[in-house]
């Protein structure tokens, strides 16, 4: 394969050409209420050619490997057509072409766990939530996916990469009349199926939280001091700052370059944010990105000051910066674009949750997240569960807590970072440019933010 693909890319007649082939097998389970609604095996096989001619890209995807030479010609022809009409040119940052093989290094391979055992395990969790008093329905899904990706470029790069990805998320739903409560538990890993075992307590907690949330009052809307648990803070740093740090947001926009000027202060001295592909076991782990660039730990904010961003070869080339191994594609159907891996807020000096609570007269403690969205400047997240904070102590549970704010103000308004860093993987993923769900992780300690808008009654 290597002997076939590298010369094919090299002789394509492009300034740069790469060929990426994907062969993936996925097993999926999905429960809806008491029923195993879906049990599925999938085989995903396909490839793409990406060609750069006079600084313009052509990208072609295919399922039939027999026609690969024709696809190379099409990609080059499209790139050439674009270059006749485009005035702007892409530049690729130089990298040393890799010659690497990445083999799986698993603690417990999910392919060695019989399907029946998986069904029994996850079915028992689902049943546990259903059996809880007040829970009216559930859903739970699990997947494991093994991928082999082969990458060749006209520069002589060759990468033969194996990957495993596993995720699981379950939700309990409680409904009484017109009021609904919900709560969830999740887990994920790149290396070890055993992380999915012994999770009874987590699912019991989800069931109890769903019922308690149903019976809780809706939070009163307004601006509050909010303490986010590590999971919600991780979603915050991913959505609110991670996306902003992706090179394609910045490379072509002079005003954004001014907003995100390296050396600019974004928060207090104790604020440190990074993105790393090197945390083995986490879903955000990645040895090489989809341009064959080795990953690294990329500092984004160090001691409150902006020091880096997340690059593909193209965005790094356009900004005359260094590629960081963040070019990722969700499948062969898409070109690689700058994406996150494991995005984190580092531990701070403010102790534990209790220490952050102490000075808060009226606030909200928000835990877990049903996800979030950002437009670069603004963000919205819905907490999985929440409690009021009154006179420095946790008080009554509230529901329907949606946090909204401005990214820049919010980073400046972080008034406390605890020292209890934690990463909680799940079954979801990141979405961008139609590519979803990309496996990522996010981690943080508890953080305290002042003046966060909470939509409520």
């Amino acid at each position: 394969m290597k002997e076939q693909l590298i010369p094919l890319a090299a002789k394509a007649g492009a300034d740069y050409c790469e060929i990426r082939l994907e062969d993936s097998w996925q097993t999926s389970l999905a429960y809806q209420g008491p029923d195993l609604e879906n049990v599925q095996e999938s085989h995903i096989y396909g490839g793409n050619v990406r060609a750069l001619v006079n600084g313009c890209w052509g990208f072609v995807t295919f399922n039939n490997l027999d026609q690969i030479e024709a696809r190379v010609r099409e990609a080059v022809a499209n790139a050439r057509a674009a270059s006749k009409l485009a005035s702007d040119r892409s530049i690729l940052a130089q990298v040393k072409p890799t010659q690497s093989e990445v083999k799986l290094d698993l603690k417990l391979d999910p392919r060695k766990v019989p399907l029946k055992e998986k069904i029994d395990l996850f079915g028992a969790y689902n049943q546990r939530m259903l059996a809880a008093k007040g829970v009216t329905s559930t859903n739970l899904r699990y997947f494991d996916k093994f991928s082999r990706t082969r990458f060749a470029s006209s520069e002589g790069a060759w990468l033969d990469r194996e990957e495993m990805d596993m995720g699981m998320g379950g939700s309990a739903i409680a409904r009484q009349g017109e009021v609904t409560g919900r709560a969830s538990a999740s887990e994920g890993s790149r290396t070890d199926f055993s992380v999915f075992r012994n999770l009874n307590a987590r699912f019991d907690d989800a069931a109890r939280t769903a019922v308690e949330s149903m019976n809780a009052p809706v939070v009163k809307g307004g601006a509050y001091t909010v303490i986010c648990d590590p999971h919600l803070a991780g979603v915050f740093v991913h959505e609110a700052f991670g996306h902003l740090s992706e090179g394609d947001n910045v490379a072509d926009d002079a005003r954004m370059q001014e907003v995100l000027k390296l050396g600019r202060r974004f928060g207090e001295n104790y604020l440190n944010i990074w993105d790393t592909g090197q945390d083995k076991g986490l879903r955000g782990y990645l040895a090489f990105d989809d341009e064959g660039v080795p990953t690294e730990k990329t500092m984004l904010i160090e001691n409150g000051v902006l020091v880096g961003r997340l690059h593909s070869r193209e965005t790094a080339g356009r900004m005359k910066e260094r590629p960081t191994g963040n070019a990722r594609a969700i499948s062969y159907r898409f070109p690689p674009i700058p994406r996150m891996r494991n995005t984190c807020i580092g531990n701070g000096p403010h102790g534990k949750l209790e220490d952050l609570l102490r000075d808060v007269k009226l606030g909200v403690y928000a835990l877990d997240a049903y996800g979030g969205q950002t437009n670069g400047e603004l963000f919205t997240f819905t907490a999985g569960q929440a409690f009021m904070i009154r006179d420095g102590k946790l008080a009554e549970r509230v529901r329907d807590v949606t946090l909204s704010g401005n990214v820049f103000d919010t980073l400046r308004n972080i008034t406390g970072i605890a020292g209890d860093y934690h990463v909680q993987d799940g079954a979801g993923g990141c979405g961008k440019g139609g590519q979803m769900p990309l496996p990522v992780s996010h981690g943080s300690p508890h953080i305290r933010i002042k003046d966060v808008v909470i939509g409520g009654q």
Partner: protein
Amino acid sequence: MVGDFTRQLSKRADAFETFSATGESLRVQFENDRLTEIRQGESSGVGIRAVKQGKIGFSYSSKADEIDDTAEAALRMAPFGKPYAFQFAGEARSPHTRVFDERCSKLDVEKMVRLGTRVREVIKSVAPEAMAECTVGGGVSSSRIVTSNGQECHERESEYGYMVAAKFAEEGNFLSTYRYRGGNQYIGDDEVLAAAREAAEEFRLARTVAPFAAGTCRVLFAPTALSDILMPIGASVNGINIARKTSRFVEAMGQKLFDERLTLLDDPWHEQGPAGGLYDGEGVVTRQRAIIEKGVLKGFLHTLSTAQMCGHQPTGNAARAVSSQPMPGAHNTVMAAGNDALADLYKQAEGGLCISQLLGTFTSNFLAGQVSGNISLGYLVKEGRRVGRVKNCALNVNSFDLLKSRIVGISREREWVGSEYLPWLLVEGVTISAR
């Protein structure tokens, strides 16, 4: 070959359904004022549901020539699958036809690049400080469903669509105004260029910031934001939530739940609608149906499975990609036009907001009716017009209450938002949080 295959499969499976699809597409994309990508794709795949010992297994492959292996995997999954309590679609022919536009199979790269360049010029001529974005693309696809119950249906579909946007980013003022539309016919350049001009003109309006204090006011939801407000209804009529009794509409069929001016139709054949088809994802013949008619709940969205679980008739609403099992979903959602001129609704929204974009609403608890999110693009309304953008505001409403008792007016004018054809909706008593 397919005939041989189905004969073989019928010997091994108690029942089966094969869904195969192929497609070709071409897309040109401009981002941040420049051409960033020309993407050409071919796709294929086969998904098979096979029944063995009364249970269903499913398997998918993107290799069309792997149909035997895919069937084998589906049979291997079957003992673990859910009970086959319904019947795969039986033989039936749709009496309708759907437009297939050959132009979508002959898209010209250079012409599309020139269109993107003209879009950029139009946006720059109206809003020089904006950065232009434009995606145009389309293609053709073909799908075939064969079941052991005698259904064998085939559809060819064409599609074409565009998205144009004017963007700006500076601290405290990120802005993106956009227009988009997709359909099953080629869309002329004039519409795309007119949409670019509209987006750029809205951009200019949004560059003015208007002061707004938190409080309760009237809100005029533009079609793009009304789509978010309607999501709790979509979740609540979904057959899965009916079958699981997680929807509060379970016992409400025939009841008046909303203002009588609210009518929502599910239309699989709308000539401008990008979604739908003559058959759904299980080969069931589709039909136009009322979901809400004059405020009364009239219909749920069912797959064959959820219909059987509820004891209802199938509705032809199985939505799926070839790689996944069917789930209930709407085709094109068409909301009935109101009696009010949009200009009159602006006058009646005096001192309130007109909201075009909401952010993050998908995380809301839709089954409870909740829609929460940041108002990423909203305007203060004065003297019958939008006078400037409001910033740092969020809303949290209960759509069920809002659409039952707080509707002030519905516009005669409507626009496509993806596969939804929606008017402007004016409501009162909306609490806006602000910093």
